[in-house]
């Protein structure tokens, strides 16, 4: 009998197949995918079906969108945000950075994300999207810079009619909590943040933080969109 309760899978390779293998090895397991990358979207959808049929649960630990500062930022983001800018500084490839940006957008409640334009160059890219947030249409821009000048990070800026919001999420190897800065008529607020990576946060809350099947399907959609961009 399999005595393992939690499987940890490295998300850098063909993680969906590996997760399917683990999920099929007994009931009541939790399969944790650490930093899931751009696996084959069909395999990810297959995994969704396997999880749906069985009794195992799946959790994804994503460095940037899983940062514990995101829920607080989302709660405080003004409803009237009409424009959002996602900026990624990366030392890796642009595709992975864009995937993280899409995942961050999802974590911030953006839906129906559709690409409008792309300007892709060897070491940088600029993408325009439209999306819905709480039923309202807004413009999105993704800027990716592949540079070693700054440690990897994502900066998200939200612009509303009377407020600004800026969230900076650092890479897991940077010992800095995320910075969520909100500016409105009452002043400027730095939201509380803790020195905790997405990984530790997720593992600490594993009992109640597993991904829904909808989230897994959304991940497959995000991978599919990112792959279609053909970025470096």
């Amino acid at each position, binding site marked *: 009998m399999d005595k393992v309760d939690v499987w940890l899978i490295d998300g850098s390779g063909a993680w969906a197949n590996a997760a399917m293998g683990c999920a099929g090895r007994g009931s009541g397991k939790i399969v944790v995918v650490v930093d899931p990358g751009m696996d084959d979207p069909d395999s990810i959808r297959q995994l969704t079906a396997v999880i749906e049929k069985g009794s195992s649960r799946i959790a994804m630990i994503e460095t940037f969108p899983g940062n514990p500062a995101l829920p607080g930022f989302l709660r405080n983001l003004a409803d009237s945000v*009409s424009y959002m800018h996602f900026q990624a500084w990366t030392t890796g490839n642009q595709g992975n950075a864009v995937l993280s940006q899409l995942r961050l957008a999802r974590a911030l409640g953006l839906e129906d994300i559709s690409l409008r334009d792309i300007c892709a*160059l060897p070491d*940088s890219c600029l993408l*325009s999207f439209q999306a819905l947030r709480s039923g309202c249409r807004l413009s999105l821009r993704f800027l990716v810079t592949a540079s070693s000048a700054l440690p990897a990070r994502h900066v998200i800026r939200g612009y509303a009619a009377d407020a600004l919001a800026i969230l900076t999420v650092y890479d897991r190897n940077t010992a800095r909590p995320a910075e969520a800065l909100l500016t409105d008529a009452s002043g400027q607020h730095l939201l509380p943040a803790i020195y905790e990576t997405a990984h530790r946060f997720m593992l600490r809350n594993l009992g109640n933080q597993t991904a829904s099947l909808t989230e897994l399907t959304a991940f497959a959609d995000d991978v599919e969109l990112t792959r279609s961009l053909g970025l470096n």
Partner: protein
Amino acid sequence: MAHKIGVGIVGAGVVSQSIHLPVLARRCDDFAVAAIWDVDPVASALLAERCGAGSSLSFEDLLNDPQVEVLAICSPVRFHADQVVRGMLAGKRAILCEKPLATTVEEARRISEVAKATGVPLLVGAMHVFDPAWIALRDQVDLLAAGAISIRSNIVLPPNARFEQWASELDGRATGPGPSLQPETIRSAVLQVAIHDLPLIRAFLPKGRQIKVIAASLHEPFGYSISVACGECVLDLSAHFYSGWQPRWELEVASAAVAVHIEFPPSFVHAGSSVATSWSGGRATVLGPFEANGYEGEWNAIHTLLRGENADIPPVEDIVGDFQLALDIAEQALTILVREYEQ
């Protein structure tokens, strides 16, 4: 007593009152406002009285006034080219023209020809070019210019009238409705807002490469975003005008190994320079804020120049190139927006 350089102000509007006259008042040991001319004689008389200057009855009078050595052209843009050219031909010692320099490339070229023929120095009131933090950053600019891969210019501003009023202590001006989100607005947004940083941005773009505007959009309440490709560099231009209190005016440039970030004060603020930060090899260097700002930098350059010393002012070819870049971006963005609105 040392000679004070006589300045003639063209236009008695908010730019003269909120920008140049406060700077010239601080530099009163070196400059004297000799005369002011505006199409509205009451406006020019009132302003001239406030600063102890003469009030010219016509532009021709201002040109013929021997006390006017330098012209500061702060009139509406449609008059710039003609007034700059006439100022040069009248033998003024230097011309400071507010941005944008002209309305068409042809006008800009005409200015360039006359500048070369007369030898009269020309400055465009692009204050960020003369900002001490930008100037202090020059070594990094040279490093980055060879390999810039991304440039982000983002301008977030509360209502401009607030800053104009603080600078000039004028009576509050009616702000009126904000700009519309019609496609044509993007042209003026580029030529009046984005243009502030385009000379700086141009310093990083690969020489001799055409720019291509990939996308343009407008957003509520008023803002724009424009995506531009030039060689292997993306240019991300955006602005957001809102009713909030906090301005943020940023320019950021990165290469594979170096990045710089400059945070400028809003227009009309006379309280020191921008702050520039550069990162390279795991090390961050912060330059500024310095005591002077870009507006003072413009007049310092004129003063240095007229003392016969080397002043760091862009050559007229660069001035025309800067204007051409702005116009290119404006026209291409407009074409994209018109096409999208028609669909």
